[in-house]
Structure formats: structure tokens, C-alpha cells
């Protein structure tokens, strides 16, 4: 494999008892790139991610990882039993050997430094996601794998979380592979989008993918309506247009809240 790539997947097939979940998938993860997997429920996103992690072995095809690859993994949910007394600090200590300063820094980079002494059972969905992210960072990963990081997080929290992930990529200079349901929310923070429905429907730069017919077919109008709804809350201009405007075009306006406020 090319020494520049972290992971190279060629012709991957995975099936569970005759049931084909991943069909002929080839993809490459490069250092410092954010790759987002999108696709409907049951499209095989989690299966593909688990194969990248080495938790599932391919039925056929090949997954090559750079020999010294350090992976930080953030699962969808943890399900820690409430009988398990665990503070955020103790939880972070189970990750890897790390100093107090390392733990503090990891929490700071996910903006959760005030949670250190709290019980993991008292955290909100978004807080828990950030703590899990901090734990993954403690391993000083070259590749961060995030299985639906925005799950259980409200929509404003999601926007914040994705921008956080982008800033972590810049700070730690790691590559990111994540699963998301909503392309429009992650667009700004993504270099490569792979639209998966057992096979790869389309892939490329986010704007390219969002205008791809096979993407439209898969996600259709509902996704677009969501976008319009989301935009209503923040920008009246979109309301007047009534058009489907990809988030990236309105990105600068969205970011500029004083501008938004001027219209209210």
C-alpha cells in the first residue's frame, strides 16, 4: 500500500449468513482528512466502520492499515450500568497511560474540562459524547473513528460538535472517519463524503455529493426539507427564497450571527 495512506480498502465484501451488507467497497483514508460516511439506516455504515477497526473480518476483499496505525475509537453508545461507579476522571484513566496534564488537555480540547470529577451517569448525551471523544484523543490517534458522534445531541449541539471535530483534526493533525445521518450538518467539516447503501453510491467532495443524482435518490426531498426547516431558525433570507440552499453556501452568513440578528 502507499505509505501516505492510513487505510486502504479494496473490493471489500461483508455478508452475514447469506445477507450481503457491504458490497465491493473500495476507499482510502488519508492523513489529516475528514471522511464522512452517510447512508440510510441499515446501509452498512457501522459494519464498514467495524471492518476498518478490525472488529469484523471481511468475507472477501482487503483492508490494509498502516502498520503502526494508532486508532482512537468512539462507539455509538457505551451502556455503562449505573451500578458501575465511574467518574469522568476514572473513565479517562482506562484509556491509556496518560498524565494528569494530558487528561486535562484532552478535556479542554473537547470543551469539557469542568466535567472531570463528575459521574459518567450524570452526563447529558452531548457531554458524554465529548468525554468519549476526549478519551479517544488520549491515545494520540492518527485516525479517529466516530460512530454517529451526534447521536442523542440536539441540533445546535450537533453543529457545535462537528465544528469541534474539525478543530480537533487541525489541533491533533489526525484523520477522521465518522458516520453521520445529515450531510448538511457535516458538510462544512468534511473533506470527503462517502454515500453508502451497501455499495458506494457516490463519493467525493460534499458539494459534489449533495448534487449527485444517486444521493438525491437516496435521501430525496425529506433531507432537503429538514435543511429548509433548520435554516428558518437562523436566517430569514432562506425563508423568503424558499429554495433548497445547501448549507455551505450560507455558511458564512450562518457563522455571522450579528448579521442573522439584523434580520430578526
Amino acid at each position: 500500500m502507499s505509505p501516505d495512506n492510513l487505510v486502504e480498502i479494496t473490493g471489500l465484501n461483508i455478508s452475514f449468513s447469506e445477507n450481503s451488507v457491504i458490497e465491493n467497497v473500495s476507499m482510502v483514508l488519508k492523513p489529516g482528512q475528514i471522511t464522512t460516511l452517510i447512508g440510510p439506516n441499515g446501509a452498512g455504515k457501522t459494519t464498514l466502520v467495524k471492518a476498518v477497526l478490525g472488529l469484523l473480518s471481511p468475507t472477501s476483499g482487503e483492508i490494509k492499515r498502516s502498520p503502526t496505525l494508532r486508532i482512537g475509537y468512539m462507539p455509538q453508545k457505551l451502556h455503562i450500568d449505573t451500578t458501575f461507579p465511574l467518574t469522568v476522571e476514572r473513565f479517562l484513566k482506562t484509556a491509556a497511560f496518560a498524565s494528569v496534564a494530558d487528561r486535562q488537555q484532552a478535556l479542554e480540547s473537547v470543551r469539557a474540562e469542568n466535567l472531570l470529577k463528575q459521574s459518567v451517569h450524570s452526563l447529558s448525551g452531548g457531554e458524554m459524547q465529548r468525554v468519549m471523544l476526549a478519551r479517544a484523543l488520549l491515545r494520540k490517534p492518527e485516525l479517529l473513528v466516530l460512530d454517529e458522534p451526534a447521536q442523542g445531541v440536539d441540533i445546535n449541539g450537533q453543529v457545535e460538535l462537528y465544528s469541534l471535530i474539525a478543530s480537533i483534526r487541525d489541533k491533533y493533525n489526525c484523520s477522521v472517519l465518522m458516520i453521520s445521518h445529515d450531510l448538511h450538518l457535516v458538510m462544512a467539516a468534511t473533506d470527503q463524503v462517502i454515500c453508502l447503501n451497501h455499495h458506494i453510491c457516490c463519493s467525493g467532495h460534499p458539494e459534489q455529493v449533495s448534487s449527485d443524482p444517486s444521493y438525491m435518490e437516496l435521501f430525496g426531498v425529506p433531507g432537503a426539507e429538514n435543511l429548509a426547516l433548520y435554516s428558518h431558525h437562523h436566517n430569514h433570507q432562506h425563508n423568503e427564497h424558499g429554495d433548497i440552499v445547501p448549507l455551505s453556501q450560507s455558511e458564512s452568513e450562518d457563522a455571522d450571527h450579528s448579521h442573522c440578528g439584523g434580520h430578526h
Partner: protein
Amino acid sequence: MPEFLLLALLGGIGVALVAGPLGSFVVWRRMAYFGDTLAHSALLGIAVGVLFDINFNLAVVSCCVILALILVSLQRQRLVATDTLLGIMAHSSLSLGLVAVSLLDDVRVDLMEYLFGDLLAITPNDLYWIYGGGAIVLLLIWRLWNPLLAVTINEELAQVEGVPVARIRLALMLLIGVVIAIAMKVVGILLITSLLIIPAASARRLASSPEQMAVIASLLGIVAVLLGLYASSQFDTPAGPSVVVAALVQFLVLYSLPLRRVA
């Protein structure tokens, strides 16, 4: 103090020490029913021990270990849900044990002793088993503590981070098997799980870290043994069940106190 009481005390304390940390894992990982299933199979181990003239402790440990292995492989096949599988194995191994014991007509096996324990009949030889086996179990738990915690938090996460998940799970099952074998003498097959679970559940009220919970569970277990044996000698109640009742009282008291959960 009469010697039998001293032996009973030492035996009970030894078992309580080991049951604390292991019981905590049983609670965290929701393995209570699993523990019960292994315990029920212990009687089969006794029958096999009598039949082939093997040391009872050894026979029971091997029986628990074999059952644990069968369980893991059946679980992978996903033929029926795990709790159904556990129910089938728990009660059929107990029944098989009872049937096998009844067929051994030339040997008298005191069923009550195995079902409910006979703490007051502990011999120095039993103590060697309890403390020898217990020391090995505690040493292993101490060595495997971090991977055991990692696997309890999330198995896939642990695996990605390089923990040999399958081996750690197996190790935990074997440890539970060993503890059941050595605890059988104290509270008997039917009550063993309570000694694992109740002190650990009570300890949850006081603990703010996994380590604390394990240690507090051991201490509460020891107190329950002391109280139970005292009650048993005062009111002439059966020793094993008295220990379990003492543990229950601890649990009820701790859960009715207005304690704030720390972690």
C-alpha cells in the same frame, strides 16, 4: 470460642474477601443469572466427584469451568436468547445432579449440606481450599483489573484498544467458577450468588470508584459473615442462610439511608 466456630469464621471471611471484587463484576456486567447457572451445576460436579472418586472441590471447579465453556460456545450460535439458555442449563444441571446423586445408592450424600451449605462443619482442609483458591483468584483479579474494567465499560472499545476481550471474558467466567466451588461449603449451591451480589450491591451505595466498590463489598461481606454466625450461634439458625439474611439487612439499611450518590 469453640474450634468449629473459629473455622467457620475463617472460612466465611475468606469467601467474603474473594466474593467482593468478583461480585462487583457480576453486578456491573449483569451476570447474576450466569452465576446462578454455574452454581446449580456444582451439584453435578459433586455427583461426578463421588462417582469417579475425585476431590469434590476439584470436581466442582472442573464442572463449572466446563459448563462456562459450553455456555460461551452455545451463546455464539444464538439458537435461543441467553437468559433462556441460562435457565435451561441452570435447572437441568441441578436436576441432573439430583438424579445422579440419588443413583449413587452406596454413598450417602447429604443434599442439604450442598444445597444450603454447612458453614459449621468446615474442616481445616476446606480452609486450605478456600484460602489457596481465594488467593489465586484475588491475584488474578489484581493482575487483570484494568482489562477487566475496560471490557466492562465497552467490549468493542476494549478490543480496538488491544485488550484480548475473549480471553478476559473467559478468565472472568473461570474465576466465578472457582469462587462458586470454594463458596459452596459456606452458603451452599442455592445461595452462592447472593453472597456475590448482595454485598456488592450494598457497596454501590458507598463507593465512588470501581476499586472502592470492590473493597467495600469485601468488608460488608465479612461483616455479614460475622453477624450471620453470631445470630446462628445465638438463635440456633442455619449458618449459611443467616449470613445471607445479615447481608440483606445491610442492603436494606444502606438503601434506606439518605446517601448522595457520588459517582
